[in-house]
């Protein structure tokens, strides 16, 4: 049976081994591993670290910890030594690991050339991590544990004040009190809709029923959004704790986590976290010895984007085809198996414990009038520093892209930023000073969505992007309602026509008319927002559509059918890079001679265009 004393004991003991306070004599090597870290080679670093330390007789403690959020510098390793500043290394390789072990772990001399920054206290000749541009403006509220704790260790989570909020909510607070606190914090659903979390809980609380369900929506399907994956991989207990608090708030008796099957590591971490939480009595029939019962099970999705929509998600848990149904009744009234159900997103739930622990005020003091607190953004695309960024609401998109993430690489120009996934839109340069705030972003023609931010430079064709999203929607439409099923196919046909040079003058008007029709007549959110990519690109980049239709040109040089490659012999330096890059053997080149292109063989794959460093291929 857990009590505040036991939690405090665990906290104290683990803070010591985690080297955060008095510190142990062992040197701690933290390997940062998320899906992204593994893909960048973290597994090899782990093996190397194990082998090297096994060969030496030094007392070393190697543990795994989630992604630090700075994906651009992966794989990362942190070295912690007693009484010294911890050092984070970047872009590690097994060879670099050996070097770091020899110099830093053994002799206490950090290898400056591989180091990124130091953590906690400053020391050595390195910046502190929160002095780096990328971290300077960030406020880690939801992601406070990322890269700090071992996600597999419940004790380390407790050491960072984990489960204290759940204990408080379950043993000391009334349901109404919890709901009031969440309402006062101004927390809105982070999955995309932005519905006030407290209100959702309140509706479910007022619906009397013997059985109620809490569902964690971990079906993060928006392409370009990966914050939920990262939270589940690096801090799974925060989601469980949020679910326990929610369950207490409206009386849920059963919980489900509906997780994407594409996230195997997140599922593994959740399974381990659930087993530990049960073992500690934080889940089960008698939570914290209060008689409150709640157990949570994982339900794996099977690859359907529409299952992120709540009514479809519930059908999928029930083992059916995930097809949305009209609302009302809302899930909080009649949900899973016909019982009142609350569905919250991963990021929302993992924010809840910190709000209960630190108070609503701590959260609502950040942000704008209507959008309180912090929001996690997944930054990717043509941008210098890709990664996860948590900032208080209200910072401008410009400062998010240029100040925090270092702007556009390769000296290219910014063209647009895509927000909100397929339901969102593209924002051009003129709107870059828009603050991140649910309402302001809608005004600029996109939506907050789950927070995927994809930056595009001048080489992205906006018509092609619209086509890409409509192709996605067409594939993912569940097919139940005609406007979405047929409408998205027709939109795609028109866009295909335009991007292959067959566009007609009336196409733009037809796209607009059809889009409005799909928007107003579709059954669920997927269809209602499906035409957004088309409408937003038409709003801000109409000239590109016109260039494709009237001039049969693709200004961004993306749409292969509209391109006629040729070599500018004056600019050609006869280097042969294009010749080597061409997979179709369509480039004719010999040493000391300018290249030329055999049009019959050319597949317009863009390889030569990309390979040429002298802009000699047009």
């Amino acid at each position, binding site marked *: 049976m857990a009590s505040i004393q036991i939690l405090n004991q665990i906290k104290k003991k683990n803070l010591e081994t985690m080297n955060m306070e008095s510190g142990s004599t062992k040197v701690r090597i933290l390997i940062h591993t998320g*899906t*992204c870290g*593994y*893909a*960048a080679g973290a597994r090899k670093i782990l093996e190397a670290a194990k082998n090297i330390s096994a060969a030496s007789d030094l007392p070393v403690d190697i543990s795994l910890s989630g992604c630090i959020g700075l*994906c*651009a510098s*992966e794989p990362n390793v942190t070295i912690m030594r007693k009484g010294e500043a911890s050092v984070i290394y970047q872009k590690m390789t097994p060879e670099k690991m050996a070097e770091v072990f020899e110099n830093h772990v053994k002799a206490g001399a950090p290898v400056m050339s591989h180091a990124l920054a130091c953590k906690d206290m400053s020391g050595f000749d390195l910046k502190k991590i929160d002095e780096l541009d990328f971290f300077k403006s960030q406020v880690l509220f939801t992601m406070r544990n990322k890269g700090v704790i071992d996600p597999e260790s419940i004790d380390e989570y407790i050491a960072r004040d984990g489960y204290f909020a759940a204990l408080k909510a379950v043993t000391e607070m009334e349901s109404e009190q919890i709901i009031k606190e969440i309402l006062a914090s101004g927390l809105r659903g982070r999955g995309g809709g932005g519905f006030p979390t407290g209100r959702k809980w309140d509706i479910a609380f007022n619906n009397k029923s013997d059985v109620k369900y809490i569902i964690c929506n971990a079906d*993060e*399907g*928006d*392409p*370009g*959004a*990966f914050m939920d*994956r990262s939270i589940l991989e690096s801090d799974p207990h925060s989601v469980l704790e949020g679910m326990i608090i929610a369950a207490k708030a409206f009386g849920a008796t059963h919980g489900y986590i509906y997780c994407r*099957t*594409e*996230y195997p590591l997140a599922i593994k971490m959740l399974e381990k976290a659930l087993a530990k939480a049960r073992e500690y009595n934080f889940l089960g029939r008698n939570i914290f010895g209060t008689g409150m019962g709640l157990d949570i099970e994982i339900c*794996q*999705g*099977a*690859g*359907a*984007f529409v299952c992120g929509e709540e009514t479809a998600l519930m059908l*999928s*848990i*029930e*083992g*059916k*085809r*995930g097809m949305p149904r009209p609302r009302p009744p809302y899930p909080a009234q009649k949900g899973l198996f016909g019982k009142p159900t609350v569905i919250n997103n991963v990021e929302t739930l993992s924010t809840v414990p910190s709000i209960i622990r630190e108070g609503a005020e701590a959260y609502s003091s950040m942000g704008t009038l209507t959008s309180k607190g912090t929001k996690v953004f*997944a930054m*990717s*695309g*043509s941008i210098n520093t*890709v*990664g996860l960024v948590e900032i208080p609401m209200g910072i401008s998109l410009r400062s998010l892209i240029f100040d925090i993430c270092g702007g556009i690489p390769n000296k290219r120009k910014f063209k647009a930023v*895509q927000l909100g*996934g397929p339901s969102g839109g593209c924002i051009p340069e003129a709107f870059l000073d828009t603050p991140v705030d649910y309402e302001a972003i809608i005004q600029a023609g996109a939506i907050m969505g789950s927070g*995927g931010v*994809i930056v*595009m430079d001048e080489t*992205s064709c906006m018509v092609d*992007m619209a086509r*890409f*999203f409509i192709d*996605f929607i067409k*594939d*993912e439409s*569940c097919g139940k309602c005609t406007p979405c099923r047929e409408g998205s196919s027709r939109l795609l046909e028109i866009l295909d026509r335009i991007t292959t040079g067959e566009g007609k003058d009336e196409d733009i008007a037809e796209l607009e008319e059809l889009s409005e029709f799909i928007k107003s007549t579709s059954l669920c959110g997927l269809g209602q927002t499906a035409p957004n990519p088309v409408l937003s690109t038409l709003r801000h980049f109409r000239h590109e559509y016109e260039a494709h239709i009237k001039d049969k040109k693709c200004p961004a040089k993306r749409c292969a059918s509209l391109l006629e490659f040729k070599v500018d012999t004056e600019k050609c330096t006869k280097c042969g890079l294009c010749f080597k*890059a061409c*997979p*179709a053997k369509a480039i004719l080149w010999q040493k000391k001679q300018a290249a030329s292109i055999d049009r019959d063989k050319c*597949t317009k*794959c*863009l*390889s030569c265009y*990309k390979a040429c460093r002298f802009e000699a291929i047009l």
Partner: protein
Amino acid sequence: MVAMQSVNKGEAKSCCEATPDWVRIDLVLEKYVGKKSQIIAALRECQEINGYLSEELIIHVSRFLRFPLSDVFGVASFYSLFSLTPKGKNTIRLCMGTACYVKGIKEINDRIVNEYQIGPSGISDDNRFGLEHVRCLGACSLAPVMVVNDDTHGAMTAEKINDILSEYK
């Protein structure tokens, strides 16, 4: 409950199509008797054993669990995880998320289709590779991303394709 006699097992249709491992499949299905809400999980496990959900396997699941065939087929055909056709020896999955698209996954796709002669069914002529498209793997920082079997390869370029794929026989 004792396992129902497996029905409609059929013989292997040709030399290259192996008989499904009915013993393992029945052991899996045992667990799901009477649990209609877990049909997705049941089909997932069957697919793991057999590689794909063949017509005879779907019929078998339906009869064994006594769920209407239309329901079982309805689920199997709805979710992209389930494959109703056999797969290639090695599975190449290309991430078609926005970040990967912006960074040029389309060119990588075209190159693979051309060089490894991937047919309309998504399988190479020699059955060595099956090519699939997935919607965002959430590793956007490493875009464009290609996954071969269980190995993730980030920051792909068309030039790297041959080197990587030559490892998979």
